[in-house]
């Protein structure tokens, strides 16, 4: 079955028109997007994560993330009963190629924790940027301006979560954009799109119809390192206390 783009446009006019804007990549062509209408974040449903690494691969493909650096990665925790606060953590190549199988359940428990930029509302990384090259957008996403960044790496030092790196070729700070180029066009992030179990879900806290509101009311939800008081917005459902 061969379908040309023109035919596709006829198939579903509304969606297809939106699609054209998406591909054109010009923000002017998504005129309905209003910065003040959104407050983006993400929900990580820890018990749903199977450690397949799809999100890491999708992120690297979508955002041209250089090898050995990660905008998102997956950690596998092994917590034993005797040492609840001292987990054994691995993340081989950021979990990009999956994890070595565990043959039989020995002592303690295993679980996977996907990590990404927490898009903190009171982000320490944007606080320290000397020139205003990194910032929280009005719709709640922490971005880096690659045309303005000095590459001083102060923000890398200030992030408590290890989410930033200096891009080895561009020599500017780089990090998760929450797929800003997608979410502003009505798509979800690449990692959420590729997650087979729904362990990652894009969330718009300003959207009253977003299921997140119901979810937050009915689940034990945490953010990472709350003691850092960063206003982290990536919510983790059923997060174990040993996770750092």
């Amino acid at each position, binding site marked *: 079955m061969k379908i040309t783009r023109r035919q596709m446009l006829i198939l579903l006019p509304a969606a297809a028109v939106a699609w054209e804007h998406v591909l054109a990549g010009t923000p002017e062509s998504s005129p309905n997007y209003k910065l003040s209408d959104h407050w983006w974040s993400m929900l990580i449903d820890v018990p749903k994560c199977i450690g397949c690494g799809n999100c890491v691969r999708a992120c690297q493909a979508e955002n041209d993330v250089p090898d*050995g*650096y*990660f905008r998102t*990665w997956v*950690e596998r925790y092994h917590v034993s009963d005797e040492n609840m606060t001292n*987990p*054994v*953590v*691995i*993340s081989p*190549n*950021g979990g990009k190629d999956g994890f070595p199988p565990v043959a039989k359940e020995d002592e303690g428990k295993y679980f996977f924790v996907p*990590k990404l930029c927490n898009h903190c509302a009171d982000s*320490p990384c944007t*606080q*320290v*940027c*000397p*020139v*205003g*090259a990194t910032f929280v957008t009005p719709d709640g996403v922490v971005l880096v301006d690659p045309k*303005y*960044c*000095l*590459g*001083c*790496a*102060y923000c*890398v*030092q*200030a*992030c*408590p*979560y*290890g*989410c*930033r*790196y*200096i891009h080895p070729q*561009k*020599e*500017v700070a780089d990090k998760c954009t929450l797929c800003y180029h997608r979410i502003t066009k009505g798509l979800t992030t690449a990692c959420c799109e590729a997650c087979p179990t729904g362990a990652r879900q894009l969330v718009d806290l300003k959207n009253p119809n977003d299921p997140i509101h119901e979810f937050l009311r009915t689940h034990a939800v945490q953010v990472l390192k709350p003691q*850092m008081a960063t206003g982290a917005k990536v919510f983790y459902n059923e997060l174990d206390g040993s996770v*750092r």
Partner: protein
Amino acid sequence: MSGVEGYIYPNEVTLYWSVLIVLYPYITGLVAGAFILASLERVFNVSAVKPTYRLALLTALSFLIVAPLPLQFHLGHPERSPEMYFTPHSTSAMAMFGYVYLWYLMAVLTFEIWLDYRHDIVKMAQSSKGLLRLVYKVMTLGSSNISPRALHVDERVSWVVTLVGIPSAFLLHGYVGFIFGSIKANPWWSSPLMPVVFIFSAMVSGIACVMVLYMAVTRLRGKTIDMRCVDTIAMYLFYTFIIDFSLEMLDLIHRIYEADESFRTLDFMVHTKLFFSQIVVQIIFGTIVPLILLAITQVIKLPELARKRMYAVAGALTLVGIFAMRWNVVIGGQLFSKSFLGYTSYKIALVTKEGLLVSIGLTLLPLVILWVLVKLLPPWTDDKAAAGVAAD
């Protein structure tokens, strides 16, 4: 991956603040310390240190000129560094530092040196020839007014500038400490004591630097070292060092006693990866040994030669020790993972932009600049030519 132990976040393998960022607080520390030594004579009327007054000012200036260079070399986009002045981010300690630096360079150091040398500059503009004459002419800013009244005005203004300069020097280096001390994500840095420790260690290193320079240069010039001056400087070095060491120990004891969530990780690091640079170089050879040497000179009456030698050794060790302190702060703060579960390592490269050769070059550059400055603006009070000036 090489050099990684335990679990670290995958982006933490690379260590971004290299030896150049070690050099930067070291050099600014020397500036602040040298200036404070100079201010002793001017504001606190410690006349014994007069022979080093001008040398200390020129030392501060030559190090201050070099201070931003390590940062420039370190930046991924050095050409964008003016953004720091054009759009400074008010919540960033680093951005504010740019302004503090300029203020200190222009309004304090250059101004004070200019005021102090103006008489000499005008005289030299008249007596020298050729290109040098032009240089001095430019430095007079076209004013050859060295009437007693004008010089008296200079003297008074200079006193005020020094007075402003002391808090400025504190600000300059306190800010560097704050850049590290305000990072809540990093328990090795995050401490309100950090700026204070930086200021006192700056004074220690600056005083030691001027003392060693004075002794070395006087020897090279074949003149006699003014022992009253060196004894006084050594005494100040000793007392500042005691304050500095007490503060550092207070920080250490506090950390050990509190033993918060990061303690096990940091403790392990100090006993392994940082053992040599922290325990051996910084604390034993860089602090305790010079402190003992200085204490002996304070307690026992020693012959001149023995004192000179002890001062030289103590001063040199101090300079190494403070460098190690900067190293342990900057590099140490990046060796452990913020997950507190593992460590990375730092290998200094040789010829890269942030390598060993560049850092050696940047360490020697201030001495070259100082040499030029000393030729241009002789700071000596024991020369015949300068005798008239020194007598005021």
